[in-house]
């Protein structure tokens, strides 16, 4: 059977078996596995298990705070990488410290810091959402808090390793990546233990989060199972599945965050279910970039002899038969409607809340949801162009990857996180008005940098097609610094948001409005169904009121009054 078809069937098969066992349980083995896992997360750590106090909610806050700082560093390093793109020797003076930060040396750290920060935010949200929806406490709060430190050390080690030449640097980087992955495995075990005693069925956000986290590792395992010989064909598929699984977790967080923040349910439950199925059964074309090979060389360091070398989407008819190309192309194209489903559902809910441009989190979510389908379509063009082997759009791939990450993926992850932050830590943002200003910085910076980069890329493509190579450099040289400077807005935006989070004021001294059992009060807007209410987390003890009775405690009214 064709390698790529086999890979996809293996990926879906493992996930299907996992989902089936998640619903049905694993019988008498469950107690044994749960006991052993609980021991490994707690007592097996020895004195380490007593380092942190383990108060409820601290682990989630720790992951989110670490994530905010890494995201700021990720934006900063990405800015440096963009600058080095047009002035490769701008930081040559650092060579006096034996630090060769020239050319594309900042690319790999920028990827690790950005995605590391984003994953930390998402895990922080998961540690809050999954136990809350199961009406249970997190299985081991102390272990989850410790894993935040371990993940941070992992990112740091990776970045340091990527700056050290020779094999020792590669080994450090791989060690850092492995450490981060290991801490994520511990988090998954913690979450699974937390939902073990859940009496009701898993709710949609829980499915998104758990399938997304598990799916990341399943795609890695599938890649290894396919073997070294198939690696040049399967590596990129594995990477694109990673992005799909990140999106799956992000969708889960956003689908939970909007109802819990605004008190307004997600408009269509059917679209939520279709988004889940669609995310798993399609392949995302987003963030494909051949430059990522330098990152993958480090993450697959022990296997790099022939694994990443020459990895590409082979064009139809060359090394891979046309069936594979056709299947992957179709799966990528099918992911576009999924993005539209998510975007429509989320934007409708945000619009109904009436709090856009007043609430920081909802504004970020709206930005991300608006840009997501646009970036998915743009990515589809560049990725399929690379797959077809024509490479006519090769010059635009990096710009579209950057645009997809900073105008769609990060705003959604960050917005979802900020939306549930008051519920997680009991602290509001220091100022909603400053937060919205920061979102403007971030949004205009990211969209501006993306557009100017695209102008530069297409000028390059046009000049190359016309055979005017001399003109290319001058046009690009004028536009690229502008794009870099515009991207500095993203750095400032993330910094201001991080400051806003850190300086947040404790506003829930009288107890959080959302108890572990669900919202204590809920405002109904228009007609609704019991199913929608249950989706929003309403329980038998929640007090329902109509919009007419709305006081200052719930939903957009609070946000608008802060102005």
């Amino acid at each position, binding site marked *: 059977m064709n390698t790529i078809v086999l890979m996809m069937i293996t990926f879906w098969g493992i996930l299907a078996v996992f989902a089936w066992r998640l619903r049905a349980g694993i019988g008498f083995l469950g107690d044994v596995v749960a006991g052993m896992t609980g021991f490994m997360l707690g007592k097996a750590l020895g004195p380490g298990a007593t380092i942190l106090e383990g108060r409820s909610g601290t682990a989630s806050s720790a992951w989110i705070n670490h994530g905010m700082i890494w995201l*700021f560093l990720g934006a900063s390093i990405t800015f*440096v990488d963009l600058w080095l793109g047009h002035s490769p020797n*701008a930081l040559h003076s650092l060579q006096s410290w034996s630090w060769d930060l020239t050319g594309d040396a900042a690319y790999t750290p920028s990827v690790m810091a950005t995605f590391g920060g984003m994953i930390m935010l998402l895990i922080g949200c998961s540690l809050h959402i999954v136990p809350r929806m199961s009406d249970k406490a997190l299985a081991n709060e102390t272990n989850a808090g410790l894993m935040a430190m371990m993940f941070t050390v992992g990112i740091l080690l990776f970045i340091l390793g990527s700056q050290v030449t020779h094999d020792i640097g590669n080994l450090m980087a791989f060690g850092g990546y492995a450490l981060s992955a290991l801490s994520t495995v511990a988090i998954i075990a913690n979450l699974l233990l937390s939902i073990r005693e859940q009496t009701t069925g898993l709710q949609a956000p829980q499915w998104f989060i758990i399938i997304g986290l598990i799916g990341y590792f399943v795609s890695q395992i599938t890649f290894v199972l396919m073997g070294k010989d198939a690696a040049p064909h399967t590596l990129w598929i594995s990477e694109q599945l990673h992005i799909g699984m990140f999106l799956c977790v992000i969708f889960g967080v956003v689908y939970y965050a909007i109802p819990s923040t605004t008190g307004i349910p997600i408009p269509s439950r059917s679209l939520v279910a279709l988004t889940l199925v669609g995310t798993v059964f399609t392949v995302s074309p987003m963030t494909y970039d051949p430059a990522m090979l330098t990152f993958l060389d480090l993450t697959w360091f022990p296997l790099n002899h022939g694994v990443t070398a020459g990895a590409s989407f082979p064009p139809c008819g060359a090394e891979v038969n046309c069936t594979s190309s056709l299947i992957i192309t179709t799966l990528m194209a099918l992911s576009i409607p999924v993005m539209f489903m998510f975007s429509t559902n989320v934007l409708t809910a945000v619009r109904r809340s009436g709090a856009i441009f007043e609430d920081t989190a909802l504004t970020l979510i709206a930005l991300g949801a608006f840009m997501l389908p646009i970036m998915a379509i743009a990515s589809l063009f560049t990725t399929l162009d690379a797959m077809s082997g024509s490479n006519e759009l090769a010059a635009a791939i990096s710009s579209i990857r950057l645009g997809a990450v900073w105008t769609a993926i990060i705003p959604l992850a960050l917005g979802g996180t900020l939306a549930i932050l008051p519920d997680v830590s009991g602290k509001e943002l*220091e100022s909603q008005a400053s937060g919205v200003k920061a979102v403007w910085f971030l949004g205009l910076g990211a969209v501006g940098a993306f557009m100017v980069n695209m102008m530069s890329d297409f000028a390059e493509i046009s000049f190359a097609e016309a055979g005017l190579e001399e003109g290319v450099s001058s046009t690009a040289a004028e536009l690229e610094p502008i794009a870099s400077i515009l991207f500095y807005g993203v750095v400032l935006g993330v*910094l*201001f948001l991080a*400051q806003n989070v850190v*300086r947040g*004021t404790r506003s829930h001294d009288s107890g959080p409005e959302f108890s572990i059992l669900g919202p204590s009060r809920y405002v109904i807007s228009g007609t609704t169904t019991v199913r929608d209410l249950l989706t929003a987390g309403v329980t038998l003890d929640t007090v329902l009121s109509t919009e007419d009775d709305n006081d200052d405690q719930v939903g957009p009214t609070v946000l608008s009054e802060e102005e």
Partner: protein
Amino acid sequence: MEDDTGFGLLDYMRSDEEPALGRMAIAMGFIILLIFLVLYDVLYPGHGFPVVSDVVPLLSGVMDSSIWFFILGIMVGFFSLVASVLVKAVEE
């Protein structure tokens, strides 16, 4: 209702219990500093500023790209973030 004054430099420099005329005092400080620099240049034309003149050539050899201005901003931002984290940690 909180007083939202944004993220201006002066807001970082003023404490919560700053006297009412604190902002004016800081502004006057900057003006006096500028006057002093102008006065020095008038009194000692052609002479470099003490200390500053020794440090600037050193920096010009190292920070010879405008990216350093942006990196300086990133460093200020990062350390202000770390400071905020530490202050909050101690406070709680």
